[in-house]
């Protein structure tokens, strides 16, 4: 799967693996993260990937010139062996997940405004409270970075038009 030369197949496999990650989130009862994973990555980003691959019409020959086959084969073998090791470790000494009650806890807003700690929870409200209080600065910075990237894209793509007229 990882070694697939065909760009469209490779993109489809990436979509499958993203949906698989979302499924893992579901198993961890983090439904919100799972849905966001599908909404953002599988639903929007990968559509653009596929879109561009199809527009450029990259054939299966594109990767043949390089030594990608050896590299990707090694990488695949390495990651599969790593996966087996991790799987064995997890299977050998894993217990059950703690029972649901505390996972779905909704934080009290009064507790947050007075500087309390976060309750570990997969409830949607928890994400909102966290982003808007404790993690406000990272949120703002990442928003600013995205804005910078967007401005950069506009500048780069508008360059040609200026020269013409």
């Amino acid at each position: 799967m990882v070694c697939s030369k065909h760009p469209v197949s490779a993109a489809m496999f990436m979509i499958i693996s993203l949906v698989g990650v979302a499924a893992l989130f579901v198993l961890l009862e983090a439904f919100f993260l799972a849905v966001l994973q599908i909404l953002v990555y599988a639903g929007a980003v990968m559509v653009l990937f596929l879109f561009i691959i199809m527009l450029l019409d990259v054939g299966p020959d594109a990767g043949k010139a390089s030594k990608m086959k050896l590299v990707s084969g090694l990488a695949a073998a390495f990651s599969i062996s790593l996966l087996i090791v991790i799987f064995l470790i997890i299977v050998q000494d894993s217990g059950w997940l703690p029972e649901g009650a505390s996972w779905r806890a909704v934080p009290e807003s009064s507790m947050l405004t007075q500087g309390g700690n976060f309750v570990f929870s997969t409830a949607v409200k928890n994400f909102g409270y966290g982003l808007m209080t404790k993690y406000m600065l990272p949120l703002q910075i990442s928003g600013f970075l995205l804005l910078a990237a967007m401005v950069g894209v506009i500048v780069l793509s508008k360059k040609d038009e200026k020269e013409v007229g």
Partner: protein
Amino acid sequence: MIDYELIQLIVIKVIFAFLMVGAIMTMAGYSVLAERKVSAWMQGRVGPNRTVLPLVGYVPVVGSLLKGLGMFQPLADGLKFLFKEEIVPGHVNKFYYYLAPIVALVPALTTMTVLPFGEFVNAEGVTIPLILADLDIGILFVLAVSSLGVYGIVLAGWSSNSKYPFLGGIRSSAQMISYELAMGLSLLPVFLWVSEPNSAVSSLSLVEIVRSQQGSTWLLIVQPISALIFLIALFAETNRLPFDMPESETDLVGGFHTEYGSFKFGIFFVAEYAHIVIGSAIFTLLFLGGWNFLPWMDNPWGADWMGALIGTGWFIIKTISLIFFFIWIRWTLPRFRYDQVMNLGWTKLLPLALANLIFYIFVVTWLDQSNLNLP
């Protein structure tokens, strides 16, 4: 050691799931019939009125009535798709060619798991929503899964290895990405409006959104702009006219499914109508009060199983009238040009949705503040 209770639960859930799939697929099939009948009515024709089962035609009044209404037409259409010769063009990419219809249909059917259609108060006074999986992020799940539906069209367009389907696929993916933004943004004011401070249940749950409209206004009345943007985006996402760029017959032959025939085309067809049915149901839940009777009125029916049944029926009536609205628009408006579609999406709907969001942020903040200061 077999856990019989667990097996029983699973069996019941599976039966429910099959019933739900059956109901939605039947509605999708009959919306095809409705499309033909309504278009005929609008153009002064008769529409399908010949198909009939062998013996039913001889029943005195009912037989001829059913025949005239074309009630057996969806059955005949389905059988026709099944028994047609399976033609696969030589120039297609076989694997993706077969995969595409499935990828188109599966998301349409998956979204129904979080679709509530009624509410039932049992003997202990516990309110049970009638829904397959009561997820507290229902509407986000619907948006996420339905955004996967675009892969079916993109893959169909690409794997056909032919220029018209390819153009259709490209157009469709661009259109879907553009209108998803406006759709998501138009829903944010709804969540703002519905969510109450300190409530334990998130307002992203469709059940919760419907309950908030019980005995008070419908969200259509308090948020007309959101409803309008959502409806337009819904038309674009379901590829309905005036937004049916991916398959506009006049300039793209048949669009993304030009190379498809027989049952694979049938699956695309059913997927489109399943999208319409589910989209109408979601619009009903969000903006038309779901299974609640009328704005500012308590439900005249009780809360027992009879009331639940009537409520579900009322919800289905609303959904069907919305499907009729979809068909009505299709046979009324001409198709947009492609650049007009993109223009409308990016320069009109998106700024309007943003302005709408900011406006409702102020309104909701003001309402919350005045509520806090009241006592």
